[in-house]
């Protein structure tokens, strides 16, 4: 029991520290790309700024509703299933990939319900459409995941990482990695981590909003992004596999931040995509066919190798 509590504490600590660092990077990096300096206030180079903003949000009371509680719950529940490192996992099961994906879908749907209840109820909101599109980006991701599962012949995330001890899956599945990455990027963009959320109405709304609900929403968006990046690491980039004398945990952190920064830079250098027809076109005419082709090729290859012993 004590071990589990210790693990929970560790997981929470890691998540909070990373959210803080990511928020800080987010502020500074995006400002630097604008040729601005970013927040200078509250501490050296604005290190205390995320904390100040947190307290500012809390200081202004606003009604929270039941959805925010569920969002908070599910955004933490994901980490019970997804291992951050080999040891930091609460529940070990054989189907952890499926369970994690289910939690993820539930979380996004909850966010949709939450965005429907904003205090600016008279404002026009397109959040329903956005969430549907966001969910539709799961389809190419699922195809890519399916081909990974076929190769590694397991549904457990831990096993997938362990089976990459020789070479990473990215070498076997470059197309799958590409589609998965683009789908992650578009989800990242739709979630609006850069301060401008797509799930709520208003142009600059990411900087707005008050109360506990706002914090939880922001936290859960970070959790989704973390989940996506960790899953990408686990599936394609070897997870917590160490290289030579470098420990696996450090490798994972390095890979995590590289991907996060790349996503941020891509997000910043492209404009807002709120032309839905275009998003749908990208998804159904590019991502889904490519990932499907990848899946079919993998499937055919495995059948040819394992069933007919051709290769």
């Amino acid at each position: 029991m004590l071990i589990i509590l210790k693990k929970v504490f560790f997981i929470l600590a890691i998540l909070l520290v990373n959210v803080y660092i990511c928020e800080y990077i987010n502020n500074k990096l995006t400002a630097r790309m604008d040729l601005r300096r970013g927040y200078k206030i509250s501490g050296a180079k604005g290190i205390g700024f995320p904390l100040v903003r947190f307290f500012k949000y809390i200081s202004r009371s606003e009604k929270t509703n039941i959805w925010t509680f569920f969002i908070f719950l599910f955004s933490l529940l994901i980490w019970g299933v997804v291992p951050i490192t080999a040891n930091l996992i609460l529940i070990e099961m054989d189907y952890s990939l499926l369970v994690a994906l289910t939690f993820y879908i539930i979380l996004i749907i909850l966010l949709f319900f939450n965005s429907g209840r904003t205090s600016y109820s008279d404002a026009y909101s397109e959040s329903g459409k956005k969430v549907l599109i966001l969910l539709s980006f799961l389809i190419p991701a699922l195809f890519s995941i399916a081909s990974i599962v076929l190769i590694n012949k397991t549904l457990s995330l831990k096993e997938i990482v362990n089976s990459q001890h020789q070479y990473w899956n990215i070498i076997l599945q470059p197309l799958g990695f590409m589609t998965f990455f683009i789908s992650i990027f578009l989800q990242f963009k739709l979630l609006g981590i850069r301060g401008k959320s797509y799930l709520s109405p208003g142009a600059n709304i990411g900087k707005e909003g008050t109360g506990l609900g706002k914090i939880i929403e922001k936290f859960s968006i970070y959790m989704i992004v973390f989940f996506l990046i960790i899953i990408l690491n686990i599936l394609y980039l070897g997870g917590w596999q160490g290289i030579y004398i470098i420990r696996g945990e450090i490798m994972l952190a390095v890979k995590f931040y590289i991907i996060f920064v790349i996503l941020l830079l891509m997000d910043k250098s492209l404009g807002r995509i709120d032309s839905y027809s275009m998003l749908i076109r990208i998804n159904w005419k590019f991502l889904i066919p490519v990932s499907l082709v990848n899946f079919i090729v993998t499937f055919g290859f495995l059948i040819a190798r394992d069933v007919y012993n051709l290769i």
Partner: protein
Amino acid sequence: MSFLIKSNFNILVTGFGCCKQEIFATQCSLYDIQRFGVNFVSVPEDADILVVQGFYNKKGIIRILNIYDRMKNPKGIIAVGSCVLNENLFNPGSELVSQFRNRVIINMHIPGCPPRPEAFIYAILKFLGISMQ
């Protein structure tokens, strides 16, 4: 409490007029008002301060008062430009301004037609009590 507001300050700009482009020019990287933690927002509920500038007729004044009512405490008003400050061509008789002043308290005036972006930044910092370097 005041420290929190000082470090993360949300401004809502209303109305239309010449001053607007000078206010929004402070967003650009040359003036960079964001480094003081000042953001421009679009929803009254999230704003700490209301910037009143430009031209108003009777309908406009009513709208502004509505917006001010929707804001949460603590809140304040900064009046920018001479249209709101005194009597001129676009504000004949200054009835509307006196009507406006009777309803709310204007915390700070920024004179000029239009005031320069530096003046706006200076006023905001003075409002926050941050010393300029």
